[in-house]
């Protein structure tokens, strides 16, 4: 993916072959921007985005609109719909094209998805009053229910306290590989990468400075940031 947003230039080739790819980098390196360009929420010039055999955006300017990208997005603040119950949050995507399921069927599937994420008991609750970890699961269930071709997670653990973070990290590590195809995970914590991701891409000022497995990065960190991120000096 090559994309320019305003005067910010992203030059990123993610090339995830399924599995979870971690996107790391200092603040302002373009991680969230990259996710939003992938999701189609940001207009980017010269963006070339392919997911599997599907071209979501071509350098020639063809762009698949957000609603037809089949991309699941879990933003940093989770972005839950405050006016809907947990069940209706999760079922939201099934009410829209191409699914257009009847209410009972939507709810049944949403309930199954919540149970797959071990939080079926949340279904009838309003989103207000959910803990950070609970919100995260609901947002994940909502993103996964439409079976997206690509899942985007923006700092899914950043807003959680240390204890919850550990348990959610374990939980994501267990469930993400079975629940979804390719996934891009933005994080600033090397422990997330160790637990969840198979590969790492390091972004600095909109450019990829290094990519590979954690071991490959540790063997030869390409920049001060990479060394610091990995804790090797």
């Amino acid at each position, binding site marked *: 993916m090559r994309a320019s947003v305003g005067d910010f230039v992203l030059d990123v080739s993610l090339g995830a072959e399924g599995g979870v790819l971690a996107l790391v980098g200092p603040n302002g390196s373009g991680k969230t921007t990259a996710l*939003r360009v992938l*999701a*189609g*929420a940001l207009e980017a010039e010269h963006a070339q985005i392919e997911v599997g055999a599907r071209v979501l955006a071509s350098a020639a300017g063809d762009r698949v*609109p*957000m*609603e*037809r*990208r089949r*991309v*699941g*997005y*879990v*933003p*940093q*603040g*989770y*972005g*839950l*719909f*405050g*006016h*809907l119950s947990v069940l209706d949050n999760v079922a*939201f*995507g099934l009410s*829209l*094209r*191409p*699914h257009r399921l009847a209410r009972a069927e939507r709810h049944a599937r949403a309930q199954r998805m919540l149970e797959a994420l071990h939080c079926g008991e949340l279904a009838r609750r309003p989103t207000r009053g959910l803990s950070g970890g609970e919100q995260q699961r609901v*947002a994940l269930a*909502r*993103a996964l229910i*439409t079976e*997206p071709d690509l899942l985007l997670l923006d700092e899914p653990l950043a807003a959680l306290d240390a204890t919850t973070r550990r348990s959610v990290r374990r939980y994501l590590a267990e469930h993400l590989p079975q629940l979804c195809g390719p996934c891009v995970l933005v994080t600033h914590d090397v422990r997330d990468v160790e637990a969840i991701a198979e590969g790492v891409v390091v972004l600095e000022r909109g450019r990829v400075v290094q990519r590979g497995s954690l071991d490959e990065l540790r063997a030869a960190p390409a920049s001060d940031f990479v060394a610091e991120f990995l804790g090797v000096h």
Partner: protein
Amino acid sequence: MTRALRAMGGLLGVALVGLLLIPLVALALSASWADLRAGLAHPAFADALLLSLRTTLTSVSITVVLGTPLGWWLASSHSSLSQVVSVAVELPIVVPPAVVGVGLLQAFGAQGLFGPALASLGVVVPFTELAVVLAQLVVASPFFVQAAASAFRKVEPDTLIVARTLGASPVGAFVRVALPIAAPGLLVGVSLAWARALGEFGATLLFAGNMPGRTQTMPLAIFSALESDVQLAVVFSLVLVAVGGLILVGLRWLSRARA
């Protein structure tokens, strides 16, 4: 120290609440049941009340239809144009209603900016029910637009992005996510605009006149009654307090239920 401060603050608050309630209490105490019966049977009453309800319903409906997209745009745009528009929309709030009335006359009056063109089409605006609606629209809609913009500012952009990635079109995301999240604030805007439209006096008097049965709304009927029969003015005022109070309580309740 904090206790003394709190007591002082409480006292100041009570003083203001008292001041706000005194006119209402005085109104309620100065009308007998006989006055009430006579006032409600007065020929000007039903006409003025119906005209007030009909015109405010119209002007508030137009305000919601035109003001909702404008509020959304003001909330989501960061351009300098939106700053200018925002100020322009707020202007009628600070401009005296009489000035709005003169302005409307200069725009739509027989000698006004658009008067001759409209007259050639056979359309006369001043001193008609349409003029009543226009006057209310100008003075009341800014309250709604302001409330709508601040309600839409509370809608996190991320929720809309998520709705889009789940399959919602831009309009679908607005209708199914932004509108319901902003609904309580929009209803507050509706009640503010409605109250302002219902009480509109100055601009209406200048631009629409005070013709019983045609352009005489409740506030103008009160003004006319005051010249001949104070008790009649008191009864009309009490009815207006009741209607305004009902609208306020009803919309508040709706707004709470939505939030």
